[in-house]
């Protein structure tokens, strides 16, 4: 049974400090490695910082798309778990994801996806500690339509740009 645990994200509150990237990679890689962080913060234009991470779609298109069953879901929290032995780096999950969230790890080339740190996400901890609350744990169930949050970060930034800069926002990302 999937427990309702989800990382709500608010790009307008994101400071761009990237401590989530540092904390995530410390946890998963044993050292600071921004591009191997399961959460990556995009900045298509300065001031528009968009945390990009898996949103645990209700129907898991990535898991469905994997031809070798390297992806599965964690029964407790619903995170996508990657079996790095099985993964062939084919990129099917990346193409299937509506927000192009998974990526091939810069070290071993395997699919890399947020695993929710077993229920206590490091990114949320450091973001909360600093008072930004761009990432917060919420306990809502499937009603949040999680899949709608799986978006290309540049598209998110385009919306955010207009929200923050008004008409000028239409011009800041090409």
């Amino acid at each position, binding site marked *: 049974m999937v427990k309702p645990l989800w990382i709500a994200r608010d790009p*307008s*509150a994101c*400071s*761009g*400090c*990237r*401590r989530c990237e*540092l904390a995530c*990679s*410390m946890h998963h*890689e044993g*050292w*600071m*490695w*921004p*591009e*191997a962080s399961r959460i*990556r913060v*995009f*900045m*298509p*234009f*300065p*001031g528009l910082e968009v945390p*990009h991470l898996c949103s645990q779609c209700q129907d898991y298109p990535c898991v469905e798309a994997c031809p070798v069953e390297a992806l599965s879901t964690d029964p407790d929290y619903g995170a996508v778990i990657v079996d790095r032995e099985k993964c062939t*780096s084919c*990129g099917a999950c*990346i193409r299937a994801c509506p927000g*192009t*969230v*998974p*990526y*091939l790890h*810069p*070290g071993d*080339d395997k699919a890399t996806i947020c695993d929710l740190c077993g229920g206590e996400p490091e990114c949320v901890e450091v973001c909360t*500690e*600093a*008072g*930004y609350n761009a990432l917060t744990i919420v306990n809502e169930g499937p009603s949040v339509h999680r899949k709608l949050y799986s978006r*290309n*970060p540049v598209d998110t930034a385009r919306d955010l740009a207009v929200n*923050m*800069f*008004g*008409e*000028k926002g239409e*011009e*800041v*990302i*090409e």
Partner: protein
Amino acid sequence: MTPGGYAGKWLDVDLSKEEIEEFSFPDETLEQYFGGRGVATKILWDRVGRRWSDLDALAPENPLIFATGPMTCYYPGARICVSGKSPVSNGVVGSTAATEFAVDIRTAGYDGVVFTGKAEKPVYLLVTDEGAELVDASHLWGLNGEKTLIKLNKEVRETLKKRKPDVGLWKEPGTMYIGPAGENMVRHAAVMAKICHAAGYGGYGSVMGSKNLKAVVAKGRGRLPAVNAPESVYLLWRKAHRDCMTNTTFRRWGTGHLGYGCGADTSSEPVRNWQEEWHDEKTMGVPHYMDRYWVKVKWSDFNCTTNCMKVSCIKAGRWKGDITDVPDYELQAYCGTNLGIFDPGDNIHISTLMDKLGHSGINCPNTMGYAAELYQRGILTENDIGFKLEWGDTEAFDRLAHMMAYREGIGDVLAEGTYRAALKIAHMKGLKPDELLKYAVHVKGIEIGAHGTRSDKDYTQDMCYAASVQGGDHTSTVTDGYSDMSGAVFQDSAVFCMFTASPSQELIFDFAKAVTGFPITVDSWRRVNGPRIVTLQKALLLMGGPDVTWEPVKDDDNPPRFYEPLPTGPYKGMVTDRERVDIRTQAYFETLGWDERGIPKKETLDRLGLSDVDPLMEKFRQ
């Protein structure tokens, strides 16, 4: 054991020959000079050395350096140090800016880049995990800063995606670039990043322009370099952030509350080219900025939780569409009060214009304020300028900033910076240089940061600019002890932000040791490493040239204005005390082992391992 915190490789780019090579430093050099400002100064000494006085800073041979340090990306507040022979001071300035370029160059496997030569046509450098290449930038030349960044973000993302389409989404690269001011070699032009971040002091934007180098761009996917004691670094990293988070004033306002405060409280803010340092204009109060213009109040650079940056945007009225940061205090003062502008919207507009044109937001408006005072005094006329240049006339200053960036009319003269413009205007008008230099607020050609010394109520004191090897640079002021050695000189060499620096020196130096493994202490930095860097900077500054050299004693002084009594405000009548300047300058020289005229002594040079500098100092000794 290789020292920690270094990627271990540098890029050496010859723009004339279009050749790119890699090189490394011996561990000993890194231990002595660390990184950033220190290593840059060492590179300049090694590559230029005794030819220094003959080298035109805007000639192809001048090495232009982008240097990270071992603590960059680990210690909160990632920055990079830009350096070279400064076309403003003819010495060395370590000019730092916050930018993700620092992160990307390190994760791509390099500690820094040295450029020499001049590209045949405009280019930018692109660095990835696969190495470095020069890319045609003809289509970017002429674009303002904002447009340059918008185009590069798209173009480079697409290039990377085309090369490796299967790895997933590519982030935007880290980028530093110049605007029209840099392209047209406005002497004090800035190297820009993130639309409103600048390596402002030193004029390295014009050095980029002189090399036809529009931008440096990097996207790295590697891990940050290994450190000596990872567990300690991690714990110290958490601790250092806790110190950042207790800095509640900066977190809330950045330095944006000082545009009012430095005027009203401490009387240390330039008003109308420093004719006054006091104002009580409540429109400059931080709530006016915050309530109307700030669209993001917690804005950070990489690995920073001090978040002194706030995103400002003008959404209505004649300056609609302007986007910049706070403006921080320096730009509130220089793009505001110094021009007689006390309206936040107008202040944001001039600040945005500095960013877009690639002017330094301190140095350019210092020169504009200087021009406005000459206009006020009838020395420059409407005929000379082409229009009236009244205090507070935002449109007039907008026009003048453009004329400087494109070197049109009087703008061509002013583009030489306040000191050199003063000499040119004196010549134009048939006046004695001193008659024009008395209104020029600079030290060693470097226009002074927005913190005056007359009231003695700010952090800046009597000789803090006069004796500094970086002249008017307010981020590198000196005191008569050693403390600046473990302050600015260290931060610029380890390369992290001065606003994230912990109040605990112990923490900072424990951090440095845990990263590098060098047996480094506050004491060793104050006594040996810091003085070595500054002494080498001093030697090169003394050599100066070819167009300007600074005289010992005479030029180790404040601008004349600082000796005029403050005309207004609670500290009316106060003045910088010349005697104290002399006494404390002497004390500073003595602490560093320089003679009474500020020339490094032979025994000092020997002690610091700089014996080969000694013959060049001979001619300065009396």
